[in-house]
């Protein structure tokens, strides 16, 4: 029966010589109804003593043909003609790329950097009580400093000692966190804040802040400068210079304004406020005043506007894809 095997081998080589494609050769020899399968079906006709050898030889031939077809196939795949290079087109892909808003992107970028410095994300309420938003931060009712925050007030349905409001800054998150946890603290709290304002290119009734708080037994102004310098260099990936100026916030003492300067620029840009947490604020939440540290509140939109040269803050809430898809 050996001749059957030899015949197939010869037929295969002939077919190959004649230029049959790998696909055709596969069909003729290796497919379910191909010559190898047919030969296997004839195994019952083989003398029982030769069956084993026949099977082995046939299998060897099958492997041999398989190898040759594979080789032929890879030869066929090397192209003779260049492929036409088509321009980029959204139609070429089924799905268009989606976008996370530049606000979320920036918050997450900031989170990444602060997490590397050991700051954990903490979330608070956006509808707050007057106590957490103001009183606990040393801004009692009637205090002139309340003028610094134009507040959107909530109509209280019940008599309450303290009114309800939409938080004007992310600082109440500090207070709630310190009330519930023991020091040391190293937290950030990103989120929306609300203001009663007439909107224009630089004023919005809702925008985002990133609150930060670092309190332990040694954190001082030099630490603050170090953390901020590190943070901004990572955020902007440039040798940003940072400058502190005296300022005033009722919940920090001393208080600063922080200005940034880009390496190629001469101009210092005012970016956010910060300071050493006021001892009275620590007392208000029952933290031993032997602890010390800093707090800051960055306007997210402000930083994005600086980074990308955006001049109108109203873009952020425009929900306009023309804006969203740029980032």
């Amino acid at each position, binding site marked *: 029966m050996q001749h059957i095997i030899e015949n197939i081998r010869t037929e295969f080589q002939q077919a190959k010589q004649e230029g049959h494609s790998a696909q055709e050769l596969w069909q003729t020899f290796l497919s379910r109804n191909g010559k190898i399968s047919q030969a296997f079906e004839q195994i019952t006709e083989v003398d029982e003593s030769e069956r084993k050898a026949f099977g082995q030889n046939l299998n060897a031939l099958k492997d041999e043909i398989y190898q040759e077809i594979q080789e032929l196939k890879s030869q066929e795949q090397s192209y003779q003609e260049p492929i036409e290079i088509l321009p980029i087109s*959204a139609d070429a892909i089924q799905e*268009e*790329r*989606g976008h*996370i*808003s530049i606000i979320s992107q920036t918050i997450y970028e900031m989170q990444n950097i602060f*997490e*590397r*410095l*050991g700051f*954990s*994300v*903490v979330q608070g309420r956006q509808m707050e009580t007057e106590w957490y938003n103001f009183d606990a931060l040393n801004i009692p009712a*009637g*205090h*002139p*400093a309340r*003028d*610094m925050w134009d*507040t*959107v*007030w*909530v*109509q209280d*349905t019940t008599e309450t000692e303290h009114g309800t409001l*939409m938080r004007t800054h992310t600082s109440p998150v500090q207070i709630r966190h310190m009330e519930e946890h023991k020091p040391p603290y*190293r937290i950030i709290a990103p989120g*929306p804040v609300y203001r*009663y*304002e007439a909107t224009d290119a630089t004023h919005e*009734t*809702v925008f985002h802040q990133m609150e930060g708080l670092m309190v*332990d037994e*040694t954190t001082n*102004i*030099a*630490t603050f*400068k*170090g*953390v901020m310098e*590190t943070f901004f260099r990572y955020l902007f990936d440039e040798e940003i210079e940072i400058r*502190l*100026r*005296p*300022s*005033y*916030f009722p919940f920090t*003492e*001393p*208080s*600063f304004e922080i200005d940034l300067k880009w390496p190629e620029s001469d101009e210092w840009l005012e970016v956010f406020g910060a300071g*050493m947490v006021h*001892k009275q604020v620590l007392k208000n939440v029952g933290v031993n005043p032997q602890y*010390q540290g800093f707090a800051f509140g960055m306007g997210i939109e402000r930083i994005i506007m600086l980074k990308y040269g955006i001049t109108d803050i109203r873009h952020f*809430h425009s*929900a*306009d*894809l023309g804006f*969203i*898809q740029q980032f």
Partner: protein
Amino acid sequence: MQIRFSTIQHWVPELELSAYEVADVLTHKSYEVDEVTYLGEQWNHMVVGYVESVEEHPDADNLRVAIVDVGESESRRIVCGADNLQEGLYVPVAKEGAVLPDGTEIESRTIRGEQSYGMICSANELQVRGKETGIKVLSEEHEPGTSLATVFGDEDYILEIDTTAFGPRASDSMSYYGVSREIANLTGKELKTPERTVPEESGSYTIKRDPELCKRYLTLEATTVSHLVMPRLRDIGELSNSPLVDLSNYVMEETGQPVHIFDARKLSGSQITIRTAEPGEEFEALGEQKLVLTEEDIVIADEEKVIALAGVIGGENSKVDEYTDSIVVESAQFNSAYVQRTARRLNLLTDAAKRFEKGLPVESARMGIERVAWYLEQMQQFVVKEGDARMDVSEFSWHLEQERLSLGGITDDGSTETEHEPVSLSSPQVRSYLGINIEDERIQQYLEQIECTVTNTNDGGFWGGSSEPAEFEVTPPYYRLDLTTPEELIEEVGRLYGYDEIPAETSHISLKVAEKNPFYEFCKQFRYSLKALGYNEVHTYPYASEGEVKLQNPVSAEAPFMRSTLRPGMRRAVQKNNRYTKEVRLFEIAAVFFSDMEHTHVSMYITPNANHIAKTLQAIRTHLHTVLQELSVNEEQVHITQHTPGEITIYYDEIELGAYSAQDGILELSVTKLYEAAEFQQPQFEELPTYPAVKRDITLSVAPDLSIETLDTLFQQYRKQRNVCRRTEYMDVYYADTYKNVTFHLEYRSADHSLTDEEVNTEVQRLVEAIQNEIDAEWV
């Protein structure tokens, strides 16, 4: 607050800094100067000219040609039509490049054939005081070529300080004198002592005063003319039409101490009472504003009536007017907390209230009244100079003839000195807070620079030479009411040392691993998953026309609530983007508000397929499925129902998460509820299959009203019963009139052998039978 640079120079005569340098020093060491404006800008290319001679214009009867010396090597020929032009006059000349206040740009040009090199200007053209016709004639004191900025007192700068930048420093710095004092302290230059007139303590008033409300109250009496002229007026910008009001405003701007002037003839009796108002007491304030007062307001009353709302505003019934010929000047210290509350409640945050509410030292009240006395004396001697206040001498010359002012006595009631509690400050505390190695001596030096009295209680006593760190007792100067804690003193040391000099330090920060906030991370992953599915994140406004949380002062009248759903915002976002013709995918993840809580919601939108809304729902549902898989949420618990056609409710277990509405194409879910209900599952590793899967597609013909969802559930139930069936998935539907054909894709695989055709056929057969047991279905 605006302050002229020349005013700072007046108080700190030895100052060597420029206006810009002063602004820089203040900004870095004290409080921010927003802007420095050079006043001379408007006078660029405008100078004093001397008319050397006047020639006739060869070609025009009403024009002449002036030969004018403007301080250049050659005199200029300037064509002029004014009648009062004559040889020997000093006149204002606008040269080419000058821009007149009305915007006219000057260039040299030919007028009726005669070249004119500039323009001689009238008072009107320069918008300065003077006769309405003809050219403005200047005094002879300035050389030709002198800038008109010098002539009109505008060779000067205005420093603009945002009053909120002062913070509590408003109490010592919200005045010309206060800012100048700060500059003097920062630069080490001497501060000029204000000239004062000290009248006799012979005032005819007695003061009845609650010390809790008012620590000091002074009056000064004077008889006066009704038209005085106030020097240095230009400093305060807007003038009133009463010199007495201008005077009191000026003294307040100058010293920081508000003073009020009453018409003496409108006061009754000789006793002035400072008390709280009766509840409901009425008072007519200046400007005919009728106010209703409470016990929280302090009032000033004569023997019959309330004459002023203390620290806030004077009364209509006692105000000075054009007939006033005798006055009572008030200068006082009032309880700042009362003034704060009153001014805010009545929405009367006057310039006086802004100062009183920050607190003023009692010393300041005395200074205010003595400055008023001094200015009253000055006013009768004051000679209006050309240019000095941009006034024309001729308009005011008649004032100078009348000198009828006479100062009366003062009454001074109350404490005369601020009592500061000394503040304890240890030097290690200063070093630990600032993060610098500053020596004890330097700390003391900085505190003394700002006029604090400093003693070191740890200086080794009798034996001296202690090496112990200093323990300071610090008493601030009377005017620094804000220095009451060690931290405030540390701030003083820090700012004088210079924040720029403090190094950026990270080496001592201990290592700490940030903790993950699970819900925050959940929302973050939600966003990233939607982005990967082609969705774009929008932010919409949180204010709504309806909701549970009503606002007292909504930012927009149409939206008086905080939103309790993201749907309306998303509808607006959809509208906004409908100009994009392609399919749009949007989402928002944000807070919504209920009366007793706030939740996080997600809204998702895909432009609906107009021909086949079911496809759109299928897509959005598949997207949600994908997101939940990425969030490791066991999404088998998600069920949907359609109680009302077009409104598809989505549940997790038994909890309603939200709904998809075919009306607007928006899916809204509560992320909070989903997170709380979700069963999270870690991926389970399963050995990779050794044997191939066998795939079959089968089509069942069912009744048109049988939902594919039901069919899908049956398939899945079956799959769970038969291990060998690895996958069942809906593929397609064909709708006919009396039936529909639904195609499912099936995959079979065994863990221990290659399945034969027969085995799979049996499995499929078994599946079809199982389904046929439940519903009417024909295998086609």
